[in-house]
């Protein structure tokens, strides 16, 4: 009963059995989070550094909470205000921190492949908290956990991923995971935001009409329009995007059945998702956040491994 990898660099490297193990373990940790004392002493002997070279609120707090609930010691490193501004290299930074006997590294970086680079050079276990436009494995895992919780399983479920797929590591990790676990995936969005050969590369359906995608799916995972990643105008205006691809309550009510709404956050309210949909009974967005802590606890517990 062990993960087949030493690090969590991406869903790409995981077997379905690994994913099953993480989700089952997360169920037990979710129970811990309901107790009066939300803490277990399991990782008391472990020190974890949260190495965040990119902005984050949600993910960083979620990891920090997960670490604290496991009784691990945590160190937070954000690039601004650190020696990275003085030009210290990634490898130097990490080796310096590791010399202080830190056991695990949770890393977010704007360069795709940064955690993979690190994994080749340092002995500590590494958890990828998002690398460039490559992967965000813990987000996909908590999304899968939330779908499983709401719909009872993943196999055979129809999931629509909507929005800026091109620049989204969340989309990629989700596609890998959902396909590995037997779900059906439809990508929906404007053609300018969907990579050209995605249909063949990942065996997913592509839909340029939002309504069709929503009629087909059981769950819609709505992605944020990533303004900070685009240096070319890929649609004429936010308002036009919202008119064609924004999800709102009126659209949801007009569908033949009630679908589940998800969003990794932060929401651009009024752009990809309106408040009346985000705050509706069909939305499990806040559950996703809650499940995020349990899933990250499971990942850290399984990667911390033994002390032999």
């Amino acid at each position: 009963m062990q993960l087949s990898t030493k690090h969590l660099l991406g869903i790409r490297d995981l077997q379905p059995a690994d994913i099953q193990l993480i989700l089952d373990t997360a169920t037990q940790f979710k129970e811990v989070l309901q107790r009066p004392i939300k803490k277990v002493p399991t990782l008391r002997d472990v020190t974890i550094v949260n190495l965040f070279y990119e902005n984050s609120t949600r993910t960083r707090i979620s990891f920090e909470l997960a670490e604290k609930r496991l009784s691990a010691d945590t160190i937070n490193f954000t690039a601004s205000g650190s020696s990275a501004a003085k030009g210290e290299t990634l490898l130097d930074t990490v080796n310096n921190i590791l010399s202080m006997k830190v056991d695990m590294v949770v890393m977010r970086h704007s360069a795709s492949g940064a955690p993979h680079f690190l994994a080749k050079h340092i002995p500590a276990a590494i958890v990828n908290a998002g690398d460039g436009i490559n992967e965000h494995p813990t987000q996909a895992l908590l999304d899968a956990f939330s779908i499983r919780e709401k719909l009872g399983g993943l196999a055979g479920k129809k999931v629509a991923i909507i929005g800026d797929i091109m620049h989204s590591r969340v989309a990629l990790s989700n596609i890998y995971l959902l396909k590995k676990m037997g779900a059906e995936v439809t990508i929906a969005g404007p053609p300018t935001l969907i990579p050209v050969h995605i249909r063949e590369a990942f065996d997913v359906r592509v839909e340029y009409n939002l309504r069709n995608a929503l009629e087909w799916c059981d769950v819609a995972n709505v992605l944020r329009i990533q303004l900070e990643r685009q240096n070319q105008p890929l649609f004429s205006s936010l308002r036009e995007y919202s008119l064609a691809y924004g999800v709102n309550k009126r659209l949801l009510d007009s569908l033949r059945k009630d679908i589940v709404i998800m969003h990794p956050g932060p929401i651009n309210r009024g752009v990809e998702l309106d408040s009346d949909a985000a705050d509706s009974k069909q939305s499990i967005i806040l559950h996703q956040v809650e499940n995020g802590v349990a899933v990250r606890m499971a990942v850290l517990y399984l990667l911390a491994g033994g002390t032999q």
Partner: protein
Amino acid sequence: MKIILNEQQLALTIQRLANQLLENHLDLANTVLIGIQPRGIYFSDRIVQQLQSEVAPAAIQYGKLDITFYRDDVRKGLHELNQTEIPFSIENKEVILIDDVLWTGRTIRAALDALLDFGRPAKVELCVLVDRRYSRQLPIQADYVGRPIDSIITQKVKVYWKEKDGKDEVTLL
């Protein structure tokens, strides 16, 4: 291999233990029973069944505890996790921990630590089916014992339950 308790003896022992519990906790109003995962729950299920035939079922507060996170060897290898269900408060209650075999005492030590994270019980008692005497590695003792046995470190006590293994039996291997 030696059979310590056959099916009939096991049933009688469970009856006796349930009655011993009732002797000290007459109406179970302020008492909660907690079975220890993964194997103690088959035993605690039977005890609770026996109690239910003698006391109103609604009166019995019964939960299950998985102690994996509190083991003193938790980081020496990955242990399988089981469900913890304690849907009530243990604050100021008299807790009866129930496990099948008491050997080194480490499981019960972990269970006590786990319990403290759920609240402050008024009292904790221990009920076990088999007490492997003189094998304790920690100062832990049982309050209700089904059968005390003498064993050496290389021997194993196997408890079989009809629901899981097709028969009710306790053997020393």
